[in-house]
């Protein structure tokens, strides 16, 4: 009966209910009005038909058997009319009444299209019913008038009018009641969502909107709200974890820095030591800044905020350039770096973050591969994703640690002494997820094979320029 749009708002429910009731009532009024007028018209035409039959009958009697027989016929008519609704009057040339159930020819009448309309005041002054009549004049000047009282039809009309009014009133009450019920149901369901939202605003993120299991619009809304809440909880937890980690991991280098500064203060007469400490201190500060930057980039990638800065760029060129950058490092360690980078592979994404991710993977591979080892770097495009693969034949990572190493600040015990922020793989992982991809870690037998998989996004801002 009621059609609701998908989005419902508190006040909208009322407006819609009212609007619907109004439409419903208007349609009922229209239908009943039509029925009323059609019935009235039908009643009138039936009356006219009956009058015409009697006139015709009277004419034929007069024509065949004369005035006396006509008088008899009229008396019969009067007798037959049990309800007393018909009116007959027969007058002679002078207008004197010959026979009839009415005293004389009516004096005051309206005339239209062979039909007369007049009031019969003599009968009952209070009712004053309209009479519909037709007259006929015979060749000798005698005139006959046959009429019909509209008292019955008037009553029928009045009854019908009352029925129409009652129907409209009933319709209004029913739609009003139904509408209130409807809006009540909808308000109650929305109220649940609102209560949950208030709790969230109050700081409780561990809540869920209950689902009714009906798979309707409200369940849809509820499940969207739940997904949103889960995402918010995830972000808040991420933020909390990040700030905990920042606090933890920055204390150590800050402490080292402080000790160094104290050392300078305590040994003012050893210029060599002062220089050495200051140099190390500056390096430490640079390291702290880079750690901070990495944490910010990871949070930014995890929050998905960087997706607004996506561009289409030549990933082949970026990879080639990063490999070139690290060639010197590899050759210092006598590591053979092989690469297989097809030209013209374009990616849509955050260029600086992807560049850093590839650099992190290659940097890790070179750091953890012993002298004389080998590394292979490859780029491959598939139907739905692009893969940047960095594989080494170093010691690798035990499979149990594949998830652990993606966590912020996690470092394998034996590699703690190597330089690094402990954020490299976390960043790659976050960047992969930002591009709807993943960071795959596999055993390279021996060594580690790291694959940065990036989803190919269909809606790229522009077609890649021809190479």
């Amino acid at each position, binding site marked *: 009966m009621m059609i609701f749009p998908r989005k419902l708002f508190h006040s909208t429910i009322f407006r819609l209910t009212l609007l619907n009731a109004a439409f419903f009532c208007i349609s009922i009024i229209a239908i009943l009005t039509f029925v009323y007028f059609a019935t009235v018209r039908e009643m009138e035409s039936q009356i006219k038909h009956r009058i015409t039959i009697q006139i015709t009958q009277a004419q034929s009697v007069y024509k065949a058997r004369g005035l006396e027989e006509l008088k008899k016929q009229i008396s019969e008519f009067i007798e037959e009319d049990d309800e007393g609704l018909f009116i007959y009057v027969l007058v002679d040339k002078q207008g004197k009444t010959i026979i009839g159930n009415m005293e004389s020819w009516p004096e005051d009448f309206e005339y239209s299209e062979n039909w007369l309309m007049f009031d019969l005041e003599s009968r009952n002054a209070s009712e004053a019913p309209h009479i519909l009549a037709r007259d006929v004049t015979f060749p000798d000047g005698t005139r006959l008038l046959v009429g019909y009282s509209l008292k019955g039809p008037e009553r029928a009309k009045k009854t019908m009018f009352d029925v129409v009014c009652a129907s409209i009133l009933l319709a209004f009450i029913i739609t009003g009641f139904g509408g209130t019920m409807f809006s009540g149901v909808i308000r109650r369901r929305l109220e649940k969502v609102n209560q949950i939202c208030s709790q969230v605003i109050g700081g409780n993120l561990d809540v869920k909107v209950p689902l009714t299991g009906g798979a309707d619009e409200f369940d849809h809304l509820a499940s969207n709200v739940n997904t949103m809440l889960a995402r918010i909880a995830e972000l808040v937890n991420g933020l909390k974890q990040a700030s905990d980690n920042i606090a933890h991991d920055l204390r150590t280098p800050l402490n080292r820095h402080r000790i160094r500064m104290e050392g300078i203060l305590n040994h003012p007469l050893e210029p060599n030591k002062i220089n050495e400490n200051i140099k190390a201190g*500056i390096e430490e*500060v*640079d*390291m702290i*800044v*880079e750690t901070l*930057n*990495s944490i*910010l*980039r990871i949070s*930014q990638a995890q929050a998905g905020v*960087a997706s*607004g*800065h996506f561009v289409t760029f030549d990933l082949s060129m*970026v990879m080639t*350039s*990063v490999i*070139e*950058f*690290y*060639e*010197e*490092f590899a050759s*210092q360690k006598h590591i053979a770096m092989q690469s297989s980078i097809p030209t013209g592979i374009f990616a849509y994404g955050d*260029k*600086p973050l992807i*560049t*850093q991710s590839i*650099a992190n993977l290659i*940097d890790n591979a070179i750091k953890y591969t012993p002298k004389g080892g080998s590394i292979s770097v490859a780029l491959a495009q598939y139907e739905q994703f692009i893969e940047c693969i960095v594989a080494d034949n170093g010691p690798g990572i035990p499979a149990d640690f594949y998830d652990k190493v993606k966590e912020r600040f996690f470092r394998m015990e034996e590699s703690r002494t190597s*330089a*690094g*922020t402990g954020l490299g793989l976390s960043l790659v992982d976050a960047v992969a997820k930002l591009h709807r991809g993943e960071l795959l870690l596999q055993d390279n037998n021996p060594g580690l094979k790291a694959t940065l998989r990036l989803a190919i996004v269909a809606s790229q801002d522009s077609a890649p320029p021809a190479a």
Partner: protein
Amino acid sequence: MRILVVEDDKSNAEYVREGLIESGHNVDISSDGMDGLYMATEQKYDALIIDRMLPKLDGLALIQALRSSGNKTPVLVLSSLAKVEERVKGLRSGGDDYLVKPFAFSELLARIETLTRRGGNVAQSEQGQLQVGNLVMNLLSHTVTRDGKNIPLQNREFKLLEFLMRHADQVVTRTMLLEGVWDFYFNPQTNLIDAQVSKLRQKIDKGFDKSLIHTIRGAGYKVSANGP
């Protein structure tokens, strides 16, 4: 050179001022955006150093106002916003270079000198060719010769040398090399730049009595035929 520093942090501004004066420049300091805009419009400066977050008038708004009035003085933007998008925003507003805090003073100095000498000292003797002393780089044939003798270079070495030669007689910092040559907007935490330059130096300077690639202590590198 006459330089205006618009920076609201007093100790930072003082540190920059002292450093620039030591390097032989004249420095004015302004501590808010409105005042800075007034000074930059009223007087003639060779370079402006503008912090992004300023009281009264935001740093980027200041630069936009300056540029829309036709002022073309080189601007170095200082900012604590490290994201690459922020850098792009800074450059789009009319800044010529963008330096993220905290920075080394040598970095700031090198960038200011690069900005003010931009286009002036580029070692371009002919089209498609760069030249510093007897070192000639042909950009079309991708070849490098010194004293007419061909020096074979790896692609990465060629890129590095090209950037250094385009900034001949200017100090180029490690960060400038990372950004300009490799498009790296992060610190890779290795001394790879130093290793790359020393490898390049072996190829360019070995066997010649005059060095062209100079190390500037605490700052970076410089390619010059006139010594460091």
